[in-house]
């Protein structure tokens, strides 16, 4: 009984998100059992395809916790990918060095945005919108064409490395043994997820994010450095976004101006479905993780069906978003009433 009492609205929301994912996935398994949906690899592919998004969403969650938003992430990814692609193909640079540079660029990018939001107290939406235009513009300045990466052996090797799982192997109908695998970006993304989770729970910075989002005025009064916390949040978001960009580039092995268009919205919707409030102060990366999985599952379901227009996944996400924000506001109402 006591443990039941401890479940508050926010934990319940998280549970609903997880339950929804499980139900959705099982439904997929039942409906599309003949199309291989039941195989472990289908799930792993969702992870592989969304590793970049997961990194970005972790950063987005941190920013949203402060009550802010970062819509520059999509174009920052495009810029990162283009930078790596052109760096390898045209400038013959070392891919590892390029990746490090991308992280540095991300940090500087985030610092500028964070400074504007934290110290100059400009609306995060408008600041990161400027960042968004800058990133997309810069991508085109680097190169206007699509660039495929093929000349660096090291890069191709990293991108194509399969990490095989020690379990879940099966033989397909042609009699070939299929070993489930993930790729390096998945490992990176999961490590990011765990680190951010621990950071949010166990560091002063993590808790400060919640405090700032809960009540900025109070955070100041309690002696927290609000401006610095915000600056750090945006730096974190941009750095995680750049890590996401690296994952993205490893997945697509190319750079183009139109890459990752609208990704910021996927990240925001994943975070919201995962229980992060746009008003700040409430949320968790575990929820965001499941938000990403739900997003991924929806598009996989639509693809597996084969007959549906891919736009249906947008409509499904729209419906889900609606469902979750209504749920959140209903919970908030109930909470207010019960006082």
């Amino acid at each position, binding site marked *: 009984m006591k443990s039941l009492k401890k479940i508050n609205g926010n934990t319940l929301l998280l549970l609903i998100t997880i339950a929804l994912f499980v139900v959705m996935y099982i439904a997929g398994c039942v409906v599309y059992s003949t199309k291989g949906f039941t195989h472990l690899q289908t799930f792993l592919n969702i992870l592989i395809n969304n590793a970049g998004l997961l990194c970005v969403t972790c950063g987005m969650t941190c920013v949203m916790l402060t009550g802010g938003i970062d819509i520059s992430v999509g174009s920052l990814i495009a810029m990162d990918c283009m930078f790596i692609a052109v760096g390898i193909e045209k400038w013959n640079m070392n891919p590892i060095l390029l990746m490090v540079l991308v992280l540095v660029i991300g940090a500087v990018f985030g610092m500028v945005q964070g400074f504007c939001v934290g110290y100059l107290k400009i609306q995060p939406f408008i600041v990161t919108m400027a960042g968004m235009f800058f990133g997309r513009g810069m991508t085109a300045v680097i190169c206007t064409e699509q660039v495929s990466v093929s000349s660096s052996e090291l890069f191709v090797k990293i991108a194509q490395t399969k990490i095989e799982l020690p379990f879940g192997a099966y033989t397909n109908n042609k009699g070939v043994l299929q070993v489930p695998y993930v790729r390096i970006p998945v490992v990176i993304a999961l490590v990011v997820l765990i680190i951010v989770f621990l950071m949010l729970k166990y560091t002063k910075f993590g808790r400060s994010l919640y405090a700032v989002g809960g*009540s900025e005025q109070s955070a100041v009064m309690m002696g927290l450095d609000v401006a610095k916390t915000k600056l750090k949040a945006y730096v974190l978001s941009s750095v995680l976004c750049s890590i996401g960009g690296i994952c993205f580039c490893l997945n697509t092995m190319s750079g183009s101006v139109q890459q990752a268009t609208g990704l910021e919205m996927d990240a925001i919707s994943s975070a919201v479905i995962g229980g992060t409030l746009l008003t700040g102060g409430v949320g968790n990366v575990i929820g965001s993780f499941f938000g990403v999985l739900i997003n991924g599952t929806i598009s996989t379901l639509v693809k597996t069906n084969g007959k549906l227009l891919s736009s249906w996944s947008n409509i499904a996400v729209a419906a889900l978003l609606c469902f979750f924000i209504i749920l959140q506001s209903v919970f908030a109402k109930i909470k207010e009433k019960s006082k």
Partner: protein
Amino acid sequence: MTFPGVKALDNVDLTLRKGEIMALMGENGAGKSTLIKCLTGINAFEAGEIHVEGIDGPVVNHSTLDAQKKGISTVYQEVNLCPNLSVAENLYIGREPRTKLGTIDWKEMISRSSRIMKELELDVDVTKTLEDYSLALQQMIAIARAVDMECKVLILDEPTSSLDDNEVAKLFKLMRQLKEKGVSIVFVTHFLEQVYEVCDRITVLRNGTLVGEYPIAELPRVKLVAAMMGKDFDDLASIKTEDNIDFTNAPLVVKAKGMSHKGTIKPFDLEIHKGEVVGLTGLLGSGRSELARVIYGADKNQTGELEFNGQKVKINAPIDAMNLGMGLLPDDRKAEGIIGDLSVRENIILALQAKRGMFHLLPMSKQNEIADKYIEMLQIKTASKETLIGQLSGGNQQKVILARWLATDPDFLILDEPTRGIDVGTKTEIQKLVLKLAKEGKSLIFISSEIEEMIRTCNKLIILRDGQTVGEITENLTQENVMSGIAGGGEND
């Protein structure tokens, strides 16, 4: 330190001795808050020095954190904690206990927090979020946070305005304990009784200047009030002149029958006549505000019906009530009343504009006229009518909201705690205003935690307990009668 157009503090000295409780008194706008903000580093000051025991040379605090490090902690009137965090975190954020790895030690934090709560005899689950607890408990938690920071100086800015008597007693006990430990306390309050109950000395400010420092024994109540107001005190008790007007023949303005709202207020009947002031009284959380909210449509009534000026009406939302000629002055002026980024003028015409609708903008000349009229009538202290309301002191903000409703010329006005957190002088003015409005034929509901104030202003008192109306007093309005009613001697009980 100056505020726009007004010099907020001018050459004020303040001495605080080790282990004493000092009351900092003054009317609204006297400069108490500004003085405190200078001490705690929220506002910078232009001249003068601060010295703290154990630190050589003058101290300059650049932030609250800075001040805390030097041993000066503050608890404000409005709870400044984070509602979304757990109680334990609210106690320890910014100075969390760490494990060897440098991460937050949750176990230690929770056990320490529980111990603090136990010491203060508060029944609180520290792992729950702060918003699960009442405002009063939140206030106690805020104090617990300040106390636990091993402060030398504790500043309490109106800590008791949202606490009930029992909680105030607990707070005073805590203050005395701290005093014995050698903590010096600055206590800002508007409740005179509380000053005499717990303080050793009184410092009085007026219009940003120091009036004087007095040992408590040398400054009886009347002299204190005179010092604060700078004039001989117009006795509060003489406000109400005529007693026991018979309203049975006056037309009914409000007639509620069996109205209720699930979870907040059980079905009630209520009749208010023209020109009558009805008081709602009861303990904190007894349903005083909730009853008013149901009539006004802020919480929709789920049962019962309402007649207004003799006609049956259906109120679905506050705008319906406004159009009928009702007004509600909410008790939480920070959250529900003022819009800090708008000017005094804009705040005054807000309700009137809402009533007229978005597309019938009031002409500017008319707006100015209305604003000037009420600033004059209510003596709102502001540099100009274009000053942002957020820069006004609490009592003056309250007057602006009152002006907002008066501008709509309502027949029926609900005032929920209009005098909370404002000084004696303004309180008297508001009470006088209530009586004046009633004389002009308006009907009012008046809600206040101070029984004396209700007795002075109301013609009839409705007593509430646990979300239910339990009695009505129309004659012999005395403190004892009302108290026994609240405590459980009501006639319907």
